[in-house]
């Protein structure tokens, strides 16, 4: 940045400041709007609240049944992420390191998964789940989430593992590692940046997922947060402040996960994207 004049620096900084404000403002707006009354919000969407309505949060939890759905969402998202990472890593390792007949076919089949729009599969999967009797179970949602989460994760892992020198594996085996130990004691730690990316990606998808959660679950006790958030939409009215309060509660875990992993993500983003 030495080549910039002080004036140039100021301009760059102002531009960057405006950019980050535009990214941060929606969250700030959501936070303070969640304390307004419905009337205040309707009359002026941007103004600060006149009196702080903490009761919005209590009502939001009651209307959206957030206390029930929060647990479901956490349980389903975490189980999905665990399975996606575990399965994805083993599969990617096998595809990247071993050559066997049908290796390419398997890889391409997984990649095809990224091409299919979820909405196109909604009804077929509903009918299939109904026939097999998988609807409305505590584990119902984990199955499609893992299936749809695997392709991108395998893609990331496979290209990352390929970059790790084979000699590391060989050295480990010489020292007496089993294949299992090579995967989880040697390669897994080396791949931690890309794993952080994969964790975030798959957690976000599972946490936000809506169509399957709506269609495959009938039992109210098994619903997840995104479906609960729509409880604030009536036929003709939307209670925005309550909805904002509910959303503030909902984004909290996402922010926490992001803060916990963000250093690694930035490494992982560049690591996974470029091949060779």
């Amino acid at each position, binding site marked *: 940045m030495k080549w910039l004049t002080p004036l140039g620096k100021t301009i760059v900084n102002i531009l960057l400041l405006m950019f980050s404000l535009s990214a941060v403002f929606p969250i700030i707006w959501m936070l303070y709007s969640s304390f307004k009354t419905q009337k205040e919000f309707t*009359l*002026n969407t941007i103004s600060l609240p006149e009196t702080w309505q903490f009761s919005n949060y209590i009502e939001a939890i009651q209307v959206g049944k957030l206390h029930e759905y929060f647990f479901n969402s956490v349980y389903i998202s975490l189980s999905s992420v665990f399975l996606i990472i575990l399965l994805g890593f083993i599969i990617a390792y096998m595809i990247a390191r071993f050559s066997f007949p049908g290796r390419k076919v398997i890889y391409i089949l997984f990649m095809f998964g990224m091409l299919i729009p979820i909405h196109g599969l*909604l*009804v077929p999967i509903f009918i299939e789940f109904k026939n097999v009797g998988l609807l409305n179970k505590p584990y119902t949602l984990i199955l499609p989430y893992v299936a749809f989460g695997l392709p991108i994760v395998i893609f990331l892992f496979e290209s990352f593992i390929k970059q790790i020198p084979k000699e590391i594996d060989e050295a480990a085996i010489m020292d007496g590692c089993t294949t299992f130990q090579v995967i989880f004691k040697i390669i897994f730690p080396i791949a931690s940046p890309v794993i952080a990316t994969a964790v975030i990606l798959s957690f976000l998808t599972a946490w936000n997922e809506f169509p399957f959660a709506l269609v495959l679950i009938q039992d109210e006790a098994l619903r997840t947060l995104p479906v609960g958030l*729509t409880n604030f939409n009536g*036929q*003709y009215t*939307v209670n925005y402040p309550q909805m904002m309060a509910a959303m503030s509660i909902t984004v909290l875990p996402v922010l926490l996960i992001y803060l916990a992993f963000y250093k690694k993500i930035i490494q992982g983003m560049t690591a996974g994207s470029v091949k060779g």
Partner: protein
Amino acid sequence: MKAFILKFTLFVAIVSLLTACGSGDDNATGSENQGGDDVSISLMHYYNKELGEPAPTAQLEKLDEFAANNPDVTINQEIQSHDNYETKVKTLAAGDELPDVFLIKGSMTQQFLENEQVMNLDEFLNENDGWQDQFIDGTLTPFQVDGSAYGVPISGGATHIVYYNQAIFDEVGIEAFPATWDEFLAAIDTLNENDVTPIALGNKGKWVLNSSYLSTLGNRYTGDEWFDNILANNGEAAFTDQPFIDALSAINQLADRDAFNENMNSIDNSEQQALYMNGKAAMFIEGDWAAGSISSNAPEEVLENTHVAIFPAIDDAGGNQNTVSGGGGWAYAINADVTGEKLEAIKDMIYHLTNEEAGKLILEKGQMPAIKVSGTEDMELGRLTREILELLEDNKYVPIYDTILEPALIEEMNNNMQVMVIGQVTPEKAAENIQKVYSK
């Protein structure tokens, strides 16, 4: 590759085996509930107690009442939010997993009937003395196919009501709501001269212009028969007919005179209400449901000056002029597979939810019921609700286009009107585009 094909075949075989087992299970559960005194009914709806919307709250109260009066009947409710309900009911229909009782929209009737998933309700509607005749004209129509009814409507309000602020009218020198279309246009010019937005429009959701403008204007120009012909698809009516083009032109005329706010395509219907409530616009046009949110959210000085009207009579239009688009929004439908004792219990329940008593409760909460209610003079109603009720007494319901026509056609109409009001297509061209989709 050979090994792969072998494995794949094996996989398919296993899946179909599982499928066979699954459907076997289903039949076993389906034969329950025969004999025995206790009946359990599954019901899916979108009523949310906490939101306090008029008709849903009334229905929930009536449901509780029915459950209390009939201890031997268990009602298993699956509650979805309104937006999700439609997706859900369509998916359940595709999987043939519909509950015993569910809500349908007019536009769903035809398809559900073709799939044999809804029951013919003609007999049921005649079982209780004169019940069928108690429904307000036009509220049953969306749920009828070939003269037979497949749904019992709940609320039946108008989708076209002009809410106007008398105080703003007074300020600019308009004494009363215009009585003719020409006066209406003149009033718009006057308001523009005084820098007030004449009509707040939020058409981001695209349905406002269709439900609240075109359905009424269309009937004013085309008359009733034209729409019947369109529905019958008998080749005697087309969207390129001059009267329909005139109806589109009437909306275009409003846009040309700058009757709307400039950002009409980027704000939604709740934001059009906000413009009005802030006193920045003299009118907005929406259904009777908007009265509720005006009553609870508008500042005092706007609320007390708010009155309601409908589009004034149009001189050179060929249809009836005392018409308002309206009728049933949602209706109860019964699963075609239900029989015996359960069916009787369901009929009792639906009657309890939609008879005159239930209609009274809906009206008291502030929405227009689908059934005629007598003795409204003695009821305690909100001021706007009463004004709307009186307004509707003199006017006849005509079909709401977008609750009856096919989704693809509605989509085309909505898209064309959205670009028409910003001057990108002419009414003639828009009519042509709509006709193209219709004649497919």
